[in-house]
């Protein structure tokens, strides 16, 4: 479904990604962990080309997408993204946030887009908040709207960039629940997170990244209980405590 080969990225002299090769099968949930500054967010952004890799190839459904002939907008229709800071559009209601891209990008009629948006808002438990503006919603509610907004484009896969890191503790559960349900429904997901409970119960595989490299990869039980790499061990012991 999503495959990357030898992704490198430089920010000036900084070598942020040093050759990331990964594969995520349809319906799989890949969780990426690692210390901050290890390049996790940059790697996610390389997949939907918000950041263009300097070297390497990104494939979606077998098609190499980081080629000049392929428009980044098309790639982003295939892969939805949810951000750490929600990034809802402040001037639009929850419903309008969800319908904007289907109407403007997919040219869906307003009625169809709204019907679908209400369905999605109901799915993330926010049917009654459709007319609320982001400022009137809690962090957890905003992030759930953001998930609905990404789903409205019918993506084949979803990228989550630390979706609960900016949330107050009491709101983390509701967002993780929505993500868990999404995974159960068969969505292909790549999630950067430090929520170990979520990772061990939902992830098909865990990848440990450090300094722009993948140091270890395996099923949750293996990574959390018997990490082979020394740095994985150190990191895991820190976050599991």
């Amino acid at each position, binding site marked *: 479904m999503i495959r990357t080969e030898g992704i490198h990225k430089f920010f000036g002299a900084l070598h942020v990604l040093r050759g990331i090769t990964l594969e995520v099968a349809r319906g799989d949930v890949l969780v990426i962990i690692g210390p901050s500054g290890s390049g996790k967010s940059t790697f996610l952004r390389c997949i*939907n080309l*918000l950041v263009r890799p300097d070297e390497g190839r990104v494939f979606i459904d077998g098609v190499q997408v980081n080629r000049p002939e392929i428009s*980044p*907008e*098309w790639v*982003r*229709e295939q892969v*939805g*993204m949810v*951000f750490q*800071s929600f*990034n*809802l*559009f*402040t*001037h639009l209601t929850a419903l309008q946030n969800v319908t*904007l*891209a289907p109407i*403007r*990008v997919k040219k869906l009629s307003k009625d169809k887009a709204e019907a679908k948006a209400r369905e999605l808002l109901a799915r993330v438990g926010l049917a009654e908040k459709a007319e609320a*503006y*982001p*400022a*009137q919603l809690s962090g957890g509610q905003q992030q759930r709207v*953001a998930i609905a*907004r*990404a789903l409205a*484009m019918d993506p084949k896969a979803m990228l989550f960039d630390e979706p609960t890191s900016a949330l107050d503790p009491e709101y983390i559960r509701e967002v993780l629940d929505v993500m868990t349900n999404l995974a159960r429904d068969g969505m292909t997901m790549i999630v950067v997170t430090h929520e170990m409970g979520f990772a061990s119960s939902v992830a098909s595989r865990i990848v440990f990244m450090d300094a722009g490299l993948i140091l270890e990869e395996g099923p949750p039980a293996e990574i959390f209980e018997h990490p082979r790499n020394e740095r994985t061990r150190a990191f895991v012991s820190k976050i599991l405590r």
Partner: protein
Amino acid sequence: MGLPAYVKRQRQAPILSPANGVRVVEMVVGGLLVISLFELALHYDIRDPNLWVRYGISFVRGFWGTLGYIALVLPVSVALGFGAGWARVSRHRLLSWPSAAYIDFFRGIPLIVAILFAFLYGVDFIPERIRFFLEDALGISASSLPYAMAALALAAHSGAYQAEIFRAGFQSIPRGQVEAAEALGLRHFQSMTSVILPQTFRLSLPPLGNELAVLIKDTSVLGAFGASELVGLASEFTQQIPISGGQLVWQFAIWTAIALTYFVMTFLVTRVLHLLERRFRTPGLEVVSL
């Protein structure tokens, strides 16, 4: 959210509230009071028919002239300001650099000097063919062209200030929202029109209202060059008043009438902008207005 309670209450007041009614009454009573004090002190009735029979036509002509200049300068300045503000935040230096130069230039020289240059030399910069077109097809007299150029200098001056207002509006849109729009597959133009501009507009309205009020009053500077608007025609008229006793009182009456006229115009414009602000108020995008 973090605002003091009185600010919230004030902004939630309906348009036709008693509080607003009180303000209008205050204004009218205050105006009448000033006028009657002045009448008492000078033993003079401001409605003096001797004055208004002679000055009335001049006043009305001046008023229309002022409205005409406002009608020209206001849209041109907003267009310039918006364009320059947009260009200022562009990633392309070919756009941002000239815009920065324009803003710095007009903010750095006095308004009256900018107008002076445009008035004296502006017409020389109009290509001959366009000048003929203006004069023949549109019937604009050659003698009024310097005033049009002076008005454009005023528009450019105000445009530079408005550009900074719009620039601030653009820059206060969180970068993350632009990224989110991109991640949803919106093209640059689409995220501009659906995400960035609507928010810039809301954030820019209150400071824009202030700037437009300033602009309206600044059209009076054109009068110093003899443009036929309120101030220009009034100074022309006052110079013709016979030196005998009435002169001082008449001047006082004329300038009072003119001050009141500008006051009413700016008051109306700021009110209209407040209405717009209310109309587009969005939770999370409030700017505390004056």
